[in-house]
């Protein structure tokens, strides 16, 4: 059996029957997108890893509660965004560095917790430019309201439809569209200096 060809629903069903392999396949499919969205929201690698871990542990330990009428991805993103928004509200996190965890003190820690944002095909100049642009965009996203951040990232980083985002964030469709519109407007204003420089 090739597990990669199996649907999420089938994998969940096997996980519910106690298949370790099914859990690991689900983890393999979603660890990157779940971590990615959490990391983009809080921009702290260590904390993002903790929150992503907590997301998977909650989902897997309550796998019997999964409602097959909805996508598994919607369920896991919902838990991930809820946990992250709660965490942001608790910590009142506003600014963090893309060059590593806020908790990193030494050069080694900064290096270990920083994230590479460029593709290997780029030359050093393009690499620097992309890194600068990435920094600017990520910093601007980090200044948005947590709900706007989640909606923008689900839409443009994960490429989800508005309806699915509404299900994930438990918001009416119109509110999601408004959040994304306002979020983009704020990003545009924050990145105005880049347009002027170009």
């Amino acid at each position, binding site marked *: 059996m090739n597990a990669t060809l199996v649907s999420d629903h089938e994998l969940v*069903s096997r996980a*519910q*029957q106690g298949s*370790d392999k099914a*859990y*690991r396949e689900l*983890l*393999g499919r979603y*660890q*990157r997108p779940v*971590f*990615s969205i959490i*990391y*983009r929201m809080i921009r702290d*690698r260590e904390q*993002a*890893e903790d929150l*992503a*871990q907590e997301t*998977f542990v*909650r989902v*897997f*330990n*309550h*796998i*019997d*509660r*999964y*409602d*097959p*009428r*909805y996508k598994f991805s*919607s*369920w896991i993103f*919902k*838990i991930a965004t*809820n946990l992250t928004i709660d965490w942001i509200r608790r910590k009142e996190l506003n600014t963090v560095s893309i060059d590593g965890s806020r908790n990193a003190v030494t050069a080694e820690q900064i290096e270990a917790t920083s994230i*590479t*944002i*460029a593709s290997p095909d780029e030359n050093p100049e393009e690499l620097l430019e992309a890194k600068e642009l*990435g920094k600017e*965009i*990520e910093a601007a996203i980090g200044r948005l309201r947590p709900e706007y951040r989640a909606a*923008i990232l689900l839409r*443009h*980083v994960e*490429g989800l439809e508005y309806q699915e985002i*509404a*299900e*994930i964030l*438990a*918001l*009416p*469709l119109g509110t999601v569209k408004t959040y994304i*519109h306002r979020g*983009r407007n704020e*990003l*545009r204003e924050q*990145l105005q200096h880049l*347009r002027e420089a170009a």
Partner: protein
Amino acid sequence: MTDATGHLPYWTLEQLAEGDLSHAERTLAEQHLRSCAHCSAELASARALIAALESLPAAAPSARFADAVMARVVIAPHTAAATAPAAARRWLPRLTRGWMAALALLLVPFAVLMGFGAWTGVSPISGMAAVWQAVRGWTRDVAWNLIAEGTEMLIRSGLYQWGADLLNGIPGPTMAGLPVLLLMMLAAVPVSAWAMARLLRAPTTGLMHA
């Protein structure tokens, strides 16, 4: 389609950039864009922002992530799939003695019915009709007795009179009652607004927060 400034609203430009406009709206927007440098620049800016967001690379967790998760997961066959058979199994007898008891529970009423038929000298079918008639008559008598006793108890205890007095005490619609009515209507406005807000904020799906 244009706003008070004579330009396309940014919302429309975003929809155009995302391909969310209808054919007719898109034609109108494109017509305006051909003669408006400002809106063309705004559209380019909207497209650039969306492209920049979509080009953000995915971040990956550390190599030990999967093992750290699995170390905290309790793997047990809870199972939605096994829930239904498990529930059925709970109610089914597990031992031969249990099966015999279940069979006996099913057969005893038939045995009683046969005995009743033999005793009255009628066939089991007509005997069953007689039993049904008796049970129906008894149920009807008990129900009527309960209603009659209940009514009598209400009258004797004075509860009936108290209720009647209470209803008589409610004043009819007069001008004096108008301010009270207005106050009640005023109070109903924030209550309905609150109820509407709750309804609008209600989750659109049955997805659960684990």
